[in-house]
Structure formats: C-alpha cells, structure tokens
C-alpha cells in the first residue's frame, strides 16, 4: 500500500503523455490529473516522506504538515480550474508547461530540504517562462527573456544562500531560519522575496504577466508569488522587515494601478498589493497573522484567477488589452461582467465574499499586535483595491464609452472555469469554517460582527463615492509606467554605452602600446612556432576539425531558431531530470 502519492509527480510525469493524446481524450485527461491530485492532497497524512542521502546531505522529498496542506489544496483546485479555462487550446505546449509549473509549485510546497526546494523552484521559473514565450511576438519574447533572466538571478542568490546556510549549520533541511540573520539568511530571503514580488524586486511580475498568453497568465497569477508566501511563512515568520515591506507593497501596487492602462497589468499590480497583506502577515508572525496570510493566499488565488480569467476573456474575444481602447462590452458579454464582478467583490473584501473573511484576519492580527500604522495603511490599500479592480477596471472595460466593439461571450469552457472560481469565492465568504479548519493554527476569529460589516461597507462605498466624484481624474491615459525594471531595461543600455565609449577608448590605448612594443617580439616567436606547428600539430588539428564539422552539420539540423522550441526542449529536459530524480531516489 502506497501511503503517499506526491502530487508533484502526478503533474510532472502526467505531463508526458499530453502531446500524444488527441481531442476529447486529451480534454478528459487534462481534468483527470488535477482531480486525482486534489484527491491525493485531501487524503494525505502529515509526516515525512522520501528521506534519502545525496552527496552526503540529508534529503527529504516531502514534508507534509498543516501549512503545506493549505497551499497544496488550493494549488490543486486552481490547477483544475485553470485547466478547464485552457481546454479549448489545440496545441499541447501550454498544457505541458502548465502541468510542469503546477507540479513544481507543489514540489516546493512539500519540499523538506533546500536542494529539493531549489530544484522545483527553478522548474517553476522555466515552465512558467514558456507561458510567456507561447504568446509569441517580439514584445512577449523579450518580456519572457527578462522574466527568465530575473528568476535565474534570484535562483542563484537562493542557491548561494542555501550553500552558505548548509555550510554554517551542517543541515539542508528546510525550516525556520534560527540563530540571527547572517549573509546566508539574507540571500535566501532575497531569493524568496524576489518570487513574492516584494519591491524593489517586483517588476518582473508586472512586466511579464500581461505579456503571457490569455490562459497562461491565469496560471501565473496563482502559483509563483504564493509559493513564495509559503516559503516565507515556513522560514521567516516574525521577521520585522517583512511587516514593513509587506505594508509598503500593499500601497505600492495600488498607487501604480491608478496609472495603468493595460487591463492585465493593472491586475498584476494588484497581485503585488494583495501579496503585501500576506507578506505583512508572515512578518507579524503571530498564530493569527500566519493563519491570515495562508487563508488570504487561499482566497487570493481563486479571486485573482477569476479576475485574470475575466480580463483574459475580453482579450480573447476583442484582441484588445488597453483600457483606452475598450468599453461598452456589457451588452455583449453580460455573463463575463457578472463573473468578473464576483472576483472584484471578493478581492475588495465585500461581506459574503471570500476576501472579507481572510483579509480582515491579517488586519485584525496587525491590530492585536498593536501596529496602528500597519492597520491604517492596509485599510487604505483595501480602499484602493476596490477603486481599481471593482470600479475603474470594470467601468472602462465593460461600461464607460461604447467603442462599438464586435464581441460575444467567450467559449463555454472559459465561462465554466470562471463559474467554478466564482462559486468558491462566494462559498468561502458565506461559509468560512471549512477554510478556517484547514489553517495551520486554531482559529479564534469571527469575521461577521456588526462593526466589521458596517466598517467594511463604509470604507468600500465611500471609496465608490470618491470614484463617482473624481471619475474624470481616473480616465486611463495612453502611457506606460516606469518601475524598477527600468534598471535592466534602460540602465543596462547606459552600461553598454559606458562599455562602448570610455572603456573602448581605454582598450584602444592599451592595444596601441602592444602594437609598437610587444608585437615585434611576438612575430619572432610566432615564426618559430609556425615551424613546429606545420610539421606536428596540423595533422592532429585537421583530424579533429573534420569530426567537429560533421558533428556541427548534425547539430544544425536540430537548430530551428524558434525560441518556443528551445523553451519546450528545456521543459522536456526538466521533466526528464525530475523523472530520473524520482526513480533513482525514491
């Protein structure tokens, strides 16, 4: 009897047959695997599985406890919803990438040691990058490379921290970092914060997500940042720095959202804002705060995916993504409007929607911890959340000026996926107890008190009043906003100028010297060398060159020059590596 089926393996090995299945068999298979994974997570027992030795280090493939079960539950549910949303796609590439992405995220959530964690961490980066590349077009490919570059850099920081940590403590087991913050701890923290999109390490998210495919962005909105919240909650609960970064982050995302014109980039800035609540909750570190952070992650994945699905449906149908080019779609897409609004009410924390019972737990935990400033800032960010996702975006996308766009409701599978997410958003809001029972610590919190309801409604509806009064000031403008990606998009060019102009001049001066003084001497030596070379070495070199030429010819046939092929090849490589890993070390 197998007592533990690793859901990550279900997804990663389960990705292999997808390209060979066709039509409705593939569709059924794409829903079967997430359903099995949900079952596997629901029946899993807390404990440690897959302990082994690797290069003299203790390895623990899966450590299951209450915290990992919360995240694994919502990840598998989200995988099912995302798959339903992507069922209409004919190509297999995105499905395979999404499976590997989800599997890697689950691998991180169950990882018991840093090496396993790192392996899956990188798997996530590569698999999700494919979802950006799959969009094709110059803009997406460039964004995809920037995304990959940033994540690889973050991965290197993480690996460096892990190695230093391992050397210092003699163990690579993944758990709370103890004994003060050293270089190792800060490197690991930086790697984690990059994936959580904590400013100033946030720009990769808002840069890449809006460039991804309609279906890919739905997956991306769910997994990368929330695995980061999970690892932060596991390793750094109660880190004071995170309270302030999280609070700043909640406001940062909201401020940028005012300026944004691209509908999915606006939503991406709200991921930054919402993850801020979770990061702050982890930083506060009390039982209630960690409960708040994990339950908010649970609710957030569902409503944010719903919002991305709504915006994606509009892009799928109209081919437009800028608010300045959208408007008046409510006539042709009423179902999409209604489903989107459920997500908007959930993220804004209206009573009887999921955000109300989770976000308030973080804010209440900050209050209990006597952090008045954090409470005020997070409350202000909630006002901004409703202002943008609940009012500005739907107004300019669905209502507002009628642009006479040809539109219709999206394919049925998209609507069904949105419906599934919407039902969960409402169900969690109305019946929070099952979610509360799942949380890592016992819950002593009642969201539905009179004061809490009237206060929330007061904040939200008077935000709406501000929106109505200052509507003209919010008109979207045809601009893009500078974020910290400026440093590697523009700053890198300044660096290149430095490399080309002053450094090139310096190099020329050096080469002048070498030409007048060093060269004559070298000529003499070279003539002597030539004699030896002609007689002995040439024969060998010619032989080698011929064989390389033959190899090169074969390699050229493999080269297609299409980036997506390379990305696919990388993903296949990752799957193969993980399969070997799974078979050899189980």
């Amino acid at each position, binding site marked *: 009897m197998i007592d533990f089926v690793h859901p990550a393996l279900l997804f990663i090995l389960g990705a292999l047959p997808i390209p060979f299945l066709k039509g409705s068999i593939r569709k059924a298979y794409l829903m079967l695997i997430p359903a099995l994974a949900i079952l596997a997570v629901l029946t899993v027992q807390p404990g440690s599985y897959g302990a082994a030795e690797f290069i003299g280090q203790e390895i623990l493939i899966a450590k299951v406890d209450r915290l990992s079960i919360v995240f694994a539950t919502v990840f598998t549910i989200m995988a099912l919803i995302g798959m339903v949303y992507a069922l209409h796609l004919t190509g297999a590439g995105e499905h395979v990438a999404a499976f590997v992405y989800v599997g890697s995220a689950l691998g991180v959530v169950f990882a018991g040691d840093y090496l396993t964690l790192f392996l899956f961490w990188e798997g996530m980066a590569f698999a999700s990058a494919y979802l950006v590349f799959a969009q094709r077009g110059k803009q997406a490919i460039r964004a995809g490379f920037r995304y990959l570059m940033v994540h690889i850099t973050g991965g290197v920081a993480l690996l460096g921290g892990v190695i230093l940590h391992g050397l210092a403590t003699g163990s690579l087991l993944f758990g709370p970092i103890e004994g003060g913050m050293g270089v190792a701890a800060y490197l690991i923290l930086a790697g984690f914060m990059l994936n959580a999109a904590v400013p100033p390490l946030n720009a990769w998210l808002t840069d890449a997500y809006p460039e991804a495919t309609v279906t890919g962005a739905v997956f991306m909105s769910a997994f990368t940042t929330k695995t980061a919240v999970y690892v932060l909650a596991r390793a750094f609960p109660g880190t004071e720095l995170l309270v302030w970064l999280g609070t700043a982050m909640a406001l940062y995302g909201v401020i940028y959202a005012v300026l944004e014109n691209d509908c999915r980039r606006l939503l991406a800035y709200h991921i930054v804002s919402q993850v801020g609540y979770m990061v702050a909750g982890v930083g506060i570190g009390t039982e209630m705060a960690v409960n708040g952070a994990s339950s908010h992650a649970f609710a957030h994945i569902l409503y944010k995916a719903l919002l991305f699905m709504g915006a994606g449906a509009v892009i799928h149908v109209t081919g437009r993504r800028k608010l300045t080019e959208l408007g008046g779609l409510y006539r042709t897409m009423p179902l999409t409007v209604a489903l989107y609004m459920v997500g908007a009410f959930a993220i804004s924390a209206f009573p009887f929607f999921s955000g109300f019972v989770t976000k308030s737990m973080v804010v209440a935990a900050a209050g209990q911890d006597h952090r008045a400033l954090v409470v005020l800032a997070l409350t202000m960010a909630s006002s901004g959340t409703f202002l943008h996702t609940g009012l500005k975006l739907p107004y300019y996308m669905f209502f507002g000026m009628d642009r006479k766009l040809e539109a219709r409701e999206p394919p049925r599978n998209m609507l069904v996926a949105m419906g599934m997410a919407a039902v969960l958003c409402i169900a969690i809001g109305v019946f929070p107890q099952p979610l509360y029972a799942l949380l890592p610590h016992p819950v002593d919190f009642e969201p539905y008190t009179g*004061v809490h309801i009237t206060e929330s409604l007061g*904040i939200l509806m*008077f935000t709406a009043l501000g929106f109505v009064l200052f509507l003209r000031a919010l008109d979207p403008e045809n601009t893009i906003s500078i974020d910290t990606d400026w440093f590697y998009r523009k700053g890198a060019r300044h660096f290149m100028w430095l490399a080309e102009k002053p450094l090139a001049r310096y190099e020329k001066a050096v080469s002048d010297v070498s030409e007048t003084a060093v060269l004559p001497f070298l000529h003499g030596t070279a003539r002597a060398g030539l004699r030896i070379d002609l007689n002995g070495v040439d024969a060998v070199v010619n032989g080698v060159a011929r064989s390389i030429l033959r190899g090169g010819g074969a390699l050229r046939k493999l080269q297609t020059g299409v980036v997506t092929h390379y990305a696919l090849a990388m993903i296949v490589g990752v799957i193969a590596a993980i399969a070997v890993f799974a078979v050899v070390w189980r």
Partner: protein
Amino acid sequence: MIRRVVDFFGEARHAEQRRRLFYLALVLIVIADFLVPREHAEYLWDRLPGWSAVYGFLSCVLLIFVSKFLGHQGGLMRREDYYD
C-alpha cells in the same frame, strides 16, 4: 436575470435610479455604523461611528491624486514607446 442586472448598471436611462439607490445605500451604511454595538475598541478610531466612511473617502481621493501627481510630475508615466 443576470443580463437585466448588468443592463441596469449600463443603460443610461437607469442613471437617475442608480444615483438615488447609491446615495440611499451611503446614508444607510452611516446610520448602521452609529447603531452597531462597539465592545472592544482597540484604537481611537474604533470608537468613532462614521470613521470608516470618512477614511474610505479620504483614502480614495488621496490615492487618486498622489498617484497621478507621481505619474505626471514625478515622471513615472512615459510614452508607450519609451523602451523601444
């Protein structure tokens, strides 16, 4: 049903009705905030009925204008071809 609700928020002919309902809701919320029992008030503002309405409105206005100021005067907003 859904179509009718969505249309109610979209069609111009319902504008007057919408506005009345909206202001009615605002008034009701403030009244309710005065009536609810407040047991454990942690902070000063927890004891002030109507505080959340004021704070929500001010937050909204502050966010709009601070962001737009940063965008226009602070140079955050750039032409779309800025990076090309």
